[in-house]
């Protein structure tokens, strides 16, 4: 680096590549299990078959042109957008709830950025080798070996990104057909554009930008940190134990056993640097809790591995709370949920989830709207009778064609005139409009304030729905 040129200091810091060492342990196993489970669901779900009457045989299909979402046996229509809103609220509250308890656990184990970065690092590891080999490859000039290995890694990354993008669009169309159409050039432009964008963004985010997304781009990292409390479990380095009186020291002769180290006032940390090497965001957790730490727990596994090899007790780096660590003698870390904020979020979560389940379970098989035609409110007919008209719109939300019967309660049966439409057959997903007219003699009209219009699916009297409607006559206040 040149000296004497102070104005060379720019505002841009080029990324220093982070080449992580692999590690084994409890948290690594958990991370991998989450990855396998999430990938299995994401990549396999579009291929699950489900027989349907008038829709493609795919279990999960977001049929945008058909204005419906098909999720296993449930058809979701645009009127049920409140479910989507509820689902998003529940997801947000769940995030806040979990963050209050275990900090940035979402970032470290569940976020798709972490999952794909982890997978891409695994690909890199498989092709380029363990950390020392990767460091050597990075420093080496561009020769055949480097071209092959780095080129191969990036090629596999692009392939994985492409399949990720393709799987995304498979949720919106019948997967086998779309796959065929895509590679024979017959798919809709929207498919190609979406897959293009997703492939590019997956490759860039997981392959090139990696932890910069977490550090600079993602808003979760910023407000997740704000939701920490002294009782929140986060990845902490027990500096009291690790540094003791005279700091950390390598395990040279005379400093190898715990007894020797404690006598000399040395901390348990042997300064092996493994926690830094495994960190996917490239920090040193021994500096304390940092905004970059995504709480993935790999440094815990790394340190525990080293502690085991020295027969020192585990937990030098562990999930613990600030409050606990500040105690003169910290106790075993545990999730402290007996806080007002956590309980509040938990209760909100339970209530909203219960309401969502209730709403989905009790969604009727048909939707109806009954409106009085208000222009004019009433008509006087030539024999003096008063007539009101109503518009009834019925939407069939079931999966099969259904005939509906319309009748009235609270007025004489002869008063209701539905023309040809006292029974109406509607196909699934369609709606029909029926105009009903009710005529009453003037004396009865003056006494009738409101009555009920009843819609019954044929053969299912239990699902009948009644709506109260007004009856207007001259002299009554509208």
């Amino acid at each position, binding site marked *: 680096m040149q000296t004497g040129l102070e104005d060379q200091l720019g505002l841009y810091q080029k990324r220093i590549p982070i080449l992580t060492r692999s590690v084994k342990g409890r948290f690594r196993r958990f991370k991998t299990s989450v990855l396998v489970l999430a990938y299995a669901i994401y990549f396999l779900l579009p291929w699950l078959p489900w027989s349907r009457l008038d829709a493609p045989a795919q279990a999960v299909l977001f049929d945008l042109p058909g204005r419906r979402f098909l999720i296993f046996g449930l058809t979701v229509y645009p009127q049920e957008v409140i479910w989507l809103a509820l689902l998003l609220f529940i997801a947000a509250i769940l995030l806040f709830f979990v963050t209050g308890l275990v900090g940035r656990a979402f970032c470290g184990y569940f976020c798709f950025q972490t999952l794909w970065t982890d997978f891409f690092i695994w690909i890199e590891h498989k092709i380029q080798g363990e950390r020392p080999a990767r460091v050597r490859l990075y420093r080496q000039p561009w020769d055949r070996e480097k071209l092959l290995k780095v080129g191969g890694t990036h090629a596999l990354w692009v392939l994985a990104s492409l399949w990720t993008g393709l799987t995304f669009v498979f949720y919106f169309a019948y997967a086998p057909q779309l796959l065929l159409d895509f590679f024979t050039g017959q798919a809709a432009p929207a498919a190609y554009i979406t897959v293009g964008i997703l492939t590019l963004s997956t490759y860039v985010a997981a392959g090139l930008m990696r932890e910069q997304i977490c550090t600079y781009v993602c808003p979760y990292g910023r407000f997740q940190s704000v939701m920490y409390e002294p009782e929140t479990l986060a990845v902490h380095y027990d500096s009291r134990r690790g540094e003791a009186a005279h700091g950390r020291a390598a395990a040279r002769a005379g400093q190898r056993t715990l007894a020797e180290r404690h006598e000399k006032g040395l901390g348990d940390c042997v300064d092996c640097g493994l926690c830094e090497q495994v960190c996917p965001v490239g920090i040193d957790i021994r500096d304390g809790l940092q905004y970059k730490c995504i709480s993935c727990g790999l440094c815990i596994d790394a340190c525990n591995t080293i502690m085991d090899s020295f027969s020192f007790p585990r937990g030098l780096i562990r999930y613990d709370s600030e409050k606990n660590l500040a105690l003169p003698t910290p106790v075993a870390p545990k999730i402290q949920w007996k806080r007002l904020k956590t309980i509040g979020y938990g209760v909100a979560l339970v209530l909203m989830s219960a309401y969502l389940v209730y709403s989905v379970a009790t969604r009727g098989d048909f939707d109806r709207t009954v409106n009085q035609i208000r222009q*004019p409110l009433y*008509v*006087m*007919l030539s024999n*003096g009778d008063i*007539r009101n008209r109503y518009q009834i719109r019925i939407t069939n939300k079931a999966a099969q064609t259904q005939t509906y019967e319309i009748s009235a309660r609270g007025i004489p049966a002869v008063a209701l005139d539905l*023309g040809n439409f006292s029974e109406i057959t509607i196909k699934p997903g369609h709606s029909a*409009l029926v*105009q009903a007219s009710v005529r009453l003699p003037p004396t009865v009209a003056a006494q009738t304030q409101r009555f009920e219009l009843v819609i019954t699916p044929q053969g299912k009297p239990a699902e009948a729905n009644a709506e109260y409607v007004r009856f207007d006559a001259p002299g009554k206040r509208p």
Partner: protein
Amino acid sequence: MSEQKPQSQTVQTTGHAWDGDLQEYNNPLPVWWVYTFYATVIFALVYWTIYPSWPIGKGWIGGVSNITYVNSEGETKTHSWNTRALLMADMNKAAVAQKPYFDKIQAMSYEQIANDPDMSGFIISAGRSLFAENCAACHQAGGQGVIGFFPNLTDDDWLYGGSFEKIHETLMDGRRGYMPAFSEVLNGEQIDQLANYVASLSGIGHDAIKARAGDVLFRSETAACFYCHTSEATGRQDMGAPNLTNNIWLWANVPAADTTEGKVAAIRGVIAGGLNKGAMPAWSGRLSPEQIKVLTVYVHELGGGQ
């Protein structure tokens, strides 16, 4: 910038001096600004080529861009770019989408249309917008009309007939309402008697003596009301003469009057003054046959059709 530049490298001035020694620097424009300006020039040239631009003599440079659309008859029309063609392209999108429905309307009979659930739904939506655009100005949004001006289309009392065919005829050819002004042949007392008689026919309060005299007058050759309204006063649909016995009023604003005298006075006004203002426009030629058929079914289904 912090170095001392030699004299020959100072920023040039524009070369003009005001008031002896007042000069202006000729600093270069910002680079980003200049290149953006060049880009706008290129944009303008491209735009002028594609879209209509400069006038030449009596015409103009038309541009290379075209607008192509398919109309409801299936013909493809291409125009050089202009906003009217843009409008036609938009309108024809709707026309093409509606064509299958309008074809079915033409092929089916009135009863078939009114009884088919799909067609009935189309009539309600297409009819509602056609009615709102063409008819509601007079007959109001729901077809209820205005007493003294426009008939109520939602009741079952019809001047010229409420069957599909009669409604169609009214729409196609229009109507002209006419009643002579009887003040020219009858005196005030006679008109008063007739008014009370007509009020009695609809069950409105009236003077019984005058009504009895009016009864006689109605069927006499002096007033000759029965010529048009028939001796039972039920009206003649071939003449457009209304039924006077059902308490449904178009011209005499009886519902608005609070007292019996007011109601009778309203009827008196019509008998004395006559009627020459009822004019229903003829819609053939203004609306297509399919649109008139849609409106026919729509009006019939407003509740009063027969």
